[in-house]
């Protein structure tokens, strides 16, 4: 294996300009133990980097990643010191993924657990079909975010684009900035003490210091849960 161990820090380093993506992912899947710390340099927008991790390891990626970085993550803590391409942390099961820059479309799609933190903005469809994971976005999210989100939480410190929470199930969204428009069946509801505690906890985990009182709660009006034969059927 081409990873280089620093004897002082015990950090194992890979450089994607000299080691293949497949070799790095193979190492992360088969040759790590809980507590290991791995650095990856020069990702240069590679797809599928650090996907399917299953151990409680720390992975620091120094640069920008391509599609599906840290997808299907379990237990690991992956930090991207750069921007992430489409579908970062998609279908995450547990653990933590932290994007220090901005994230492209579909960040955290279908995540079933774990925490995704994006320091910058997230593109369209952030948290689409969220199934139990938590997402904290330091900046704003694009249109159609949390579309059909079923469980979990999204904390949006900036603004939300069009059709936020369209066809929401039981995921709950908290927005600090402006909401351009709500999607079908999404509604703004009063913040309860429980909501404030959830927001405070997620902000603390994400390292943001906003006041939980500044957030609005968006949840499902549950009007689409059952077929309504009297509703206008335009399509």
């Amino acid at each position: 294996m081409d990873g280089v161990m620093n004897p002082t820090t015990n950090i194992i380093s890979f450089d994607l300009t000299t080691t293949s993506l497949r070799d790095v992912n193979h190492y992360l899947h088969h040759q790590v133990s809980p507590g290991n710390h791995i650095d990856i340099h020069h990702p240069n927008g590679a797809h599928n980097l650090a996907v399917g991790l299953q151990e409680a390891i720390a992975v620091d990626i120094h640069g920008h990643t391509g599609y599906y970085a840290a997808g299907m993550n379990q237990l690991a803590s992956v930090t991207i010191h750069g921007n992430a391409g489409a579908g970062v942390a998609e279908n995450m099961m547990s653990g933590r993924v932290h994007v220090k820059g901005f994230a492209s479309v579909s960040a955290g799609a279908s995540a079933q657990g774990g925490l995704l933190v994006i320091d910058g903005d997230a593109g369209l469809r952030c948290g689409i079909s969220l199934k139990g994971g938590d997402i904290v976005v330091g900046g704003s999210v694009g249109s159609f975010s949390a579309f059909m989100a079923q469980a979990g939480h999204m904390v949006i410190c900036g603004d939300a684009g069009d059709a936020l929470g369209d066809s929401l199930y039981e995921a709950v969204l908290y927005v600090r900035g402006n909401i351009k428009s709500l999607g079908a069946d999404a509604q703004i509801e009063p913040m309860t003490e429980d909501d404030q505690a959830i927001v405070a906890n997620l902000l603390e985990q994400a390292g943001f210091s906003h006041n939980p009182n500044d957030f609005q709660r968006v949840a499902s009006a549950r009007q689409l849960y059952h077929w309504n034969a009297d509703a206008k059927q335009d399509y």
Partner: protein
Amino acid sequence: MCGIVGLLIKNPALRDSLGALTVPMLIGMAERGPDSAGLAVFTQPIAESDRKYSLYSGTTVVDWGQLIQALHQQLGGTAQIHTQGNHGILTANLSPAVVKPWIHEHYPAVHILSTGRTIDLYKDEGQPAAVAERYGFSQLKGTHVVAHTRMATESAVTPAHAHPFTAGEDFCLVHNGSLSNPHSIRRMLEPRGIHFDTDNDTEAACRYLEWRMQEGDDLKSALQKGFEELDGFFTFLMGTQDTLALVRDAFACKPAIVAETDDYVAIASEFRSLAHLPDIDHATLYEPAPEEMYVWTVS
């Protein structure tokens, strides 16, 4: 899936390296488009009375020298040609209104890929690296470039279906995505005398936007009408004599990322095509927003 690539040089000292900077960007998008590739390069404008014609003869062997001799004998004027196998760039002080019909009549196997005072265009089937090698993309010089790697989804794989598409003069467009109403656009344009070369959806968008500009719209007004008329998924990158322009559909279905430094503006479908550009670590990186117009002008 397809890949788009654009580069506009701000620092004149880098204009001689335009092709060398572009080739790794194009090859970076090879996985998104391995069946064909193309590139339009924009140079300083030639004399007002002159026009450049990028010609392509496919598998037909054309005696280019004989072509310009015949052209000169029959149409007059002065003409010269710079050739590379089945590709030639004809420069002549003759109007497109006479040159284009003459080529169609006398050299039906020769396709006119582009016309204008600044644009040279190359496109062909094959892996992007092979196409770049075939036509010497790394040697190209100029102010800006629009390039494409194609993975066909809705019409045949032929050189004519490769991007960039052109219409009119000094205008080209590349597309990642698919349109759902290209046939109705075409049915609207054809009765107005606008001729189509292929059945490709991107050609409809290219000809629609160029038609709007012929009708008096500036580029931004044409793009605004494009948002209203063109239905489907698209990231469009366009080149004119002195600009690059980029738009994405309302759903931002197809990717795009921009890197800007003091020296250049670089555009690609994905960051991996930008990763090797000089000083990229200090570039301003952003994803263009849906239904916004991004226009960069050569200074």
